C-alpha cells in the first residue's frame, strides 16, 4: 500500500471476491488478504481498476496460521521485514522481551485464525505511530507515544469474522510532536480471548480459605486488620493467565506485579482496592482496555473469573473490598445454602462459593469488571 496506489478486483475461479483499495499515506509492505477455497486447482485473477498503481508482491498457498493464544514477539509465525532490534531494557513486558524499530517501512505480518486480535506494545517518550492493516483494510494508526513508560498496553481489533486474517504493522515514520523519535515496538500478539476461566476458578476454590506461600499475604482470616481481598483477586487473575506487568522500580497504575526481595511485596495495583491519589486495582483496570472491561454496577452480568469491587456505605474512601466471581453453582457458605446461584469467593472474611451478593445491601456501590484478555 502507498500513496500512489489505486484499486483492484480479485476473482477466484472466475468469481468476483471483492474490490480492494491499496491507498495509504505511507508505504506499507507485505499487506495481504486470504480467501478460503476447497482442495484442488484454482485460478486467481487480479484486475487493475485504476485510480493509481496496483502491485503484486507474492501469492501464498495454504499459508501457515495459528489460533487462539498469546504469541510473544519472537514467535516464528510473526514475519518481520526491514530493520528490527531486540530491546535490551524490557522489564515489565510480556516475557521480558520486545522488538523495536524506528526505520520507516519496517514492519511485520502475522497470519492467524480467529475473530479478534490484540496488539500488545509499550508506550514511551521516543515512540512513533504504527500503521495497522488487517486483510488489506486500513485500520489507521496506533500512537505509541506517552511521556512516561507504560508496558503491555494493548489495542484489540475485534469483529473480524471467523476465518484466516493477516495483521500487518509498519513503522509509519510519523509521530506525536512531543515524541523524540519514531520507534514502534511489538511486545506480543493475542489471538482471541485466552483468559482461562476454569484455571482461575480452580485457583479461587483451592485458596478461598488458605494462603498460597508463592504470594505475599496481607492478612489471615480473623486477623485485624485483614487486607488480603485484592491480593486474592489478583492471584486468581494471574492463575487464569493474565500476565504480570512487572517492574520493581516503578509503582504506578500501569504496573501489576509481585516480587520477592528478602520477603514478599507487590505493587499497590496488585493489593490495594482503592485509595485517593495512589495506585490501586481500581485505578489500574481503567488503564487497560486490552485486559479489563468495565461492566457497570451489576456483577450478575459477570462470568467465572471476573471480579467486582465494593464500597462501604459509611465512609468516603472509595472501594474497600474485592470479590471474585466463580460461576453458577450450589451455594456452599453464607445463606441460601444448597441453592443454585451465581457464586463468588473472597478473602477477608474468607468465603468460598457464597451467592455473589451475599451481605450486600443496595446502598453498597459496586464496580464490575470483565476480563477480556
Amino acid at each position, binding site marked *: 500500500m502507498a500513496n500512489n496506489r489505486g484499486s483492484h478486483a480479485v476473482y477466484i475461479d472466475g468469481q468476483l471476491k471483492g474490490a480492494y483499495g491499496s491507498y495509504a499515506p505511507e508505504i506499507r509492505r507485505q499487506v495481504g488478504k486470504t480467501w478460503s477455497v476447497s482442495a484442488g486447482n484454482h485460478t486467481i485473477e487480479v484486475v487493475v481498476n485504476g485510480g493509481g498503481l496496483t502491485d503484486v508482491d507474492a501469492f501464498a498457498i495454504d499459508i501457515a496460521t495459528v489460533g487462539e493464544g498469546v504469541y510473544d514477539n519472537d514467535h516464528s509465525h510473526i514475519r518481520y521485514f526491514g530493520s528490527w532490534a531486540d530491546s535490551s531494557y524490557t522489564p515489565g513486558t510480556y516475557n521480558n522481551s520486545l522488538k523495536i524499530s524506528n526505520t520507516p517501512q519496517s514492519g511485520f505480518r502475522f497470519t492467524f485464525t480467529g475473530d479478534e486480535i490484540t496488539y500488545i506494545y509499550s508506550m514511551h517518550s521516543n515512540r512513533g505511530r504504527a500503521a495497522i492493516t488487517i486483510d488489506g483494510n486500513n485500520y489507521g494508526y496506533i500512537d505509541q507515544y506517552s511521556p512516561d513508560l507504560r508496558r503491555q498496553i494493548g489495542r484489540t481489533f475485534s469483529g473480524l469474522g471467523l476465518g484466516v486474517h493477516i495483521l500487518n504493522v509498519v513503522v509509519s515514520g510519523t509521530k506525536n510532536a512531543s515524541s523524540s523519535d519514531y520507534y514502534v515496538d511489538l511486545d506480543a500478539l493475542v489471538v482471541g480471548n485466552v483468559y482461562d476461566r476454569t484455571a482461575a476458578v480452580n485457583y479461587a476454590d483451592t485458596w478461598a480459605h488458605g494462603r498460597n506461600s508463592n504470594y505475599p499475604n496481607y492478612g489471615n482470616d480473623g486477623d485485624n486488620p485483614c487486607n488480603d481481598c485484592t491480593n486474592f483477586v489478583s492471584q486468581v487473575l494471574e492463575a487464569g493467565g493474565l500476565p504480570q506487568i512487572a517492574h520493581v522500580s516503578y509503582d504506578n497504575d500501569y504496573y501489576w506485579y509481585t516480587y520477592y526481595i528478602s520477603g514478599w511485596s507487590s505493587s499497590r495495583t496488585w493489593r490495594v482496592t482503592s485509595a485517593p491519589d495512589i495506585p490501586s486495582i481500581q485505578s489500574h483496570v481503567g488503564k487497560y482496555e486490552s485486559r479489563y472491561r468495565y461492566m457497570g454496577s451489576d456483577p450478575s452480568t459477570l462470568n467465572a473469573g471476573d471480579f467486582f469491587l465494593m464500597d462501604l456505605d*459509611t465512609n*468516603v474512601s472509595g472501594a*474497600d473490598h474485592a470479590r471474585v466471581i466463580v460461576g453458577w453453582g450450589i451455594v456452599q457458605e453464607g445463606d441460601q445454602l444448597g441453592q443454585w446461584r451465581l457464586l463468588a469467593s473472597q478473602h477477608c472474611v474468607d468465603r468460598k462459593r457464597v451467592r455473589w451478593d451475599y451481605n450486600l*445491601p*443496595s446502598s453498597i456501590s459496586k464496580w464490575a469488571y470483565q476480563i477480556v484478555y
Partner: protein
Amino acid sequence: MFRQRFLGAIFLIAAVVLLGLRVTFAQESADVDPPGKTDTQAIMDVMLQFYQLLRETPVRTLDVKQFAEVLKDTPDYELTAETQNYVSVILGSEAAQSAGYLTAMQAKWTHLQQGDRLAKGVIEQAKAENREVTAEEWQALAEQNHGKLPPTFSDPDPNYKVQLQYESIEINEDRAVVRFDDGIAYQEAILRYMEGRWYITNIIPISVHF
C-alpha cells in the same frame, strides 16, 4: 395566668433536675428526647435512623439534607486534605471549610446520586439501541462524574431491615463511643450530645467483613 406561671416553674425545675441527672448518671436524657428515654436508647435510635436512611431508602429518592437530623460536623471527624478537596469539588469550597462527618456523607451521597442519574441515562440509551455501553461512553461518564466511574443503584429489597448488633455503648458526659456491627463491618461510631439530642459525628471501620 397563675396556672401558666406555676406550670412554667414546675417545668423549669423538672428540666434542671433532669439535666442534673444527665450529668450525674449520664444515662437519662432530657430536653428534646422524650421523657423516660435513656441515652442508650436515644443513641441506638439515632444510629438506626441513620442506617435506615442509608439502606432502606432508594438512593434516587434519598434526601441528603435528612442526614442533618442524625449527623453533625465536629472535629471528631478527621478531615484529610483528600476528603476536603472531594467535598469542595462536590459541594463547593465553603462547605469544605468546616466539613465533618455530616458534610462528608452529604458530599458522598450527593456525588453517588448524580453519578447514578448520569449512568442510568446512558445505560437506558444503550438499551434502547440494543447495545452495551461502550468503553468510550464509560470514560465520558467518568469525566462528567468528577473522574470517577459512577456506580448505579437498585432500590432496596422491601424485606431488608437494618440490623445493628451493639457490642458496647460507652457514654461520658456529652460524648459516646459505640462499637457495633452493621452486617458488613465492625465499626466504631462517635456521638455527641448537642442541642438536646445525640448526633453521630464519625463512624470508623474497625474490620470489614462484607
